[in-house]
């Protein structure tokens, strides 16, 4: 990945932007290469992995994680993050499932998305208006929203009984591609456009890159923060709707540890926790990687608890790489000065 000509060019026009872009491309390629290796070795050692059904399933699971991961990438680029996405996912899944028994699917989905938006906006408002740390606010919200989910279901499961066609959101195919994958691609395209080509995205990155400078240049920190957390809430709600259409029966204990997955795919995909830039392509690849590993472990009949272990270790590993990358950038800047 660091072939001589590119490296030369990289040294010649030295700027943070270039260094960041170079590392971003390298990281996307890195995760992609890792993904290829895992897919190839899984196909060899796990018979039944490289089948149409299994690949479709893996793609669906990856898409559900990726959607929230993409939102999380936005938040991390802004220098924040959201620990409440797992709870928001389960609450919105419950909302859409319950609403389906009274209203039409489009309205039920709208209801779930609005719930996610409202919770995200609440997070953002608490963080920006009361100046509370994002970590604690979303940590507290994680508990509150989970409690609300348990309260509305009274600990029982909720099932989709009417409008069974809701399941098409999961098993449907468009041009041979599973619908969840299409949904994920749409979210990806919209968020990429938002991040790279709108003032909103640039402001979010500016806040993550240098908060003080962003304030001085007149970026409305509060508004951008609230909007970004609203966005994360919506992506979590989309994941919730997707989860509900996948399972068709949901309860309030789902989605624990989902926040960890979302953060892992963002960081593994090359979005630095220090903020300032978001690597959305990397997030998608990392979500695919995570789902592939899980599916391979499933086929090999490895007990599911090892997947927790794998997730934890993968997260620590990704973070360690993130640190090394930051140290590398800092060193490059120092040598330039």
């Amino acid at each position: 990945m660091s072939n001589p000509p590119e490296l030369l060019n990289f040294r010649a026009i030295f700027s943070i932007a270039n260094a960041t872009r170079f590392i971003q491309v390298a990281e996307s390629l890195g995760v992609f290469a890792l993904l290829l290796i895992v897919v190839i070795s899984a196909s060899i050692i796990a018979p039944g992995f490289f089948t149409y059904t299994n690949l479709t399933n893996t793609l669906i699971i990856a898409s559900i994680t990726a959607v929230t991961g993409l939102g999380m990438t936005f938040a991390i680029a802004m220098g924040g993050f959201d620990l409440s996405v797992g709870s928001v996912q389960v609450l919105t899944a419950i909302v859409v499932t319950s609403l389906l028994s009274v209203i039409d699917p489009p309205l039920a989905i709208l209801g779930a998305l609005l719930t996610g938006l409202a919770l995200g906006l609440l997070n953002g408002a608490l963080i920006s208006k009361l100046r509370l740390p994002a970590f604690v606010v979303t940590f507290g919200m994680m508990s509150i929203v989970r409690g609300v989910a348990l309260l509305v279901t009274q600990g029982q499961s909720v099932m989709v009984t009417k409008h069974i066609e809701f399941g098409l959101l999961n098993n449907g195919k468009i041009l041979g591609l599973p619908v969840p994958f299409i949904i994920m691609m749409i979210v990806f395209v919209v968020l990429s456009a938002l991040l790279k080509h709108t003032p909103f995205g640039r402001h979010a990155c500016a806040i993550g890159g240098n908060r003080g400078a962003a304030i001085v240049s007149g970026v409305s920190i509060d508004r951008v923060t609230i909007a970004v957390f609203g966005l994360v809430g919506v992506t979590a709600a989309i994941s919730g709707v997707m989860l509900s259409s996948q399972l068709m029966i949901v309860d309030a204990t789902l989605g624990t540890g989902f926040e960890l997955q979302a953060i892992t795919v963002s960081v593994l995909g090359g979005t630095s926790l220090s903020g300032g830039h978001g690597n959305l392509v990397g997030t998608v690849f990392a979500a695919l990687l995570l789902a592939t590993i899980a599916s391979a472990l499933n086929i090999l009949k490895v007990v599911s608890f090892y997947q927790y272990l794998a997730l934890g270790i993968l997260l620590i590993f990704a973070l360690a790489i993130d640190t090394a990358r930051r140290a590398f950038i800092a060193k490059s800047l120092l040598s330039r000065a």
Partner: protein
Amino acid sequence: MDLSETANRKIDGQPSYGISLLSFLTRYYIQSLLVVSVVILGAVNPYFRTMANLENILLQASFAGIGAAGMTLLIVSGAFDLSVAGLLGLSGVLISELLPSLGVVLTVVAALSFGVLLGLLNGLVVTKLRIPAFIATLGMMNVYLALAFIWTQGSRVISVSDPDFNILGTGTLIGVLPIPFLVMIIAYLVCYGILNRSVYGRCLRAVGSSEIAARTAGLPVDLIRILAFAIVGGCTALAGVFLTAELSSASAIMATGYELTVIAVVVIGGTSLKGGEGTLFGSFTGALFFAVISSALNILNVAAYWQYVVTGVFLISALGVQALRSYILVE
């Protein structure tokens, strides 16, 4: 009470103002809140003021309280540990495995050393790999939970029925003070000594106020933080010993949500999340306050699920109160 006064004066580092009601309430808001809620609940509900209930409150307070003692020191140094729920579950499982062969004393010693070791590991991951503490420990929580799950082959509950061991959780001194509560008092006295009367405590505060300044002054910042993580690990394992003894069983998920409660207890007690200052007396009161509220919810027959909502709301509003409090104190 003079312990508390010195504690608060020292930590706040503020000159004393006149004893106006406002400044008293600002300074001792959690203590006032505790007294008011106990008085109201005791007056309203006859069951609340029974000896059995009060004893139960002290017992429940000690599980979160013991963990919060260590966590206060760690938060003063400017870090967190979210892995405590996994760590506690894993030590519980370890206790259940070791107890039949090792006997009570050795098992407790082994569990505490195990907790300290895992704490050291957390500290190493945070400081040496330079990963932000909240996310590194979130990852470690997954690792510990997974290990506990693998060890117990799922969320199997292992019974721990050694009468000598169970007395640690159920025994009382002079019939009212549960043993875990006495140990909690000792833990707070020890941590108070560490934080306010030792060189290491000053180092903790220095690192928490400004890591760069501490580094420039030549303090071994990494070592100081790693030790703080080890203290949290030890305290959590200690809480694990009493929880296992009280439940007379252990499982991987025996402490789900423990990290949230512990951090909420510390924050509601008045320790700033920014690091650099902290009050152990506040954490102590915070633990009692949480136990009182959860006992009240039980007595009033509120669905158990409300606990999640209440804990989260308290955590967030405690931060708001803290902001308001520092504003008033500065005025």
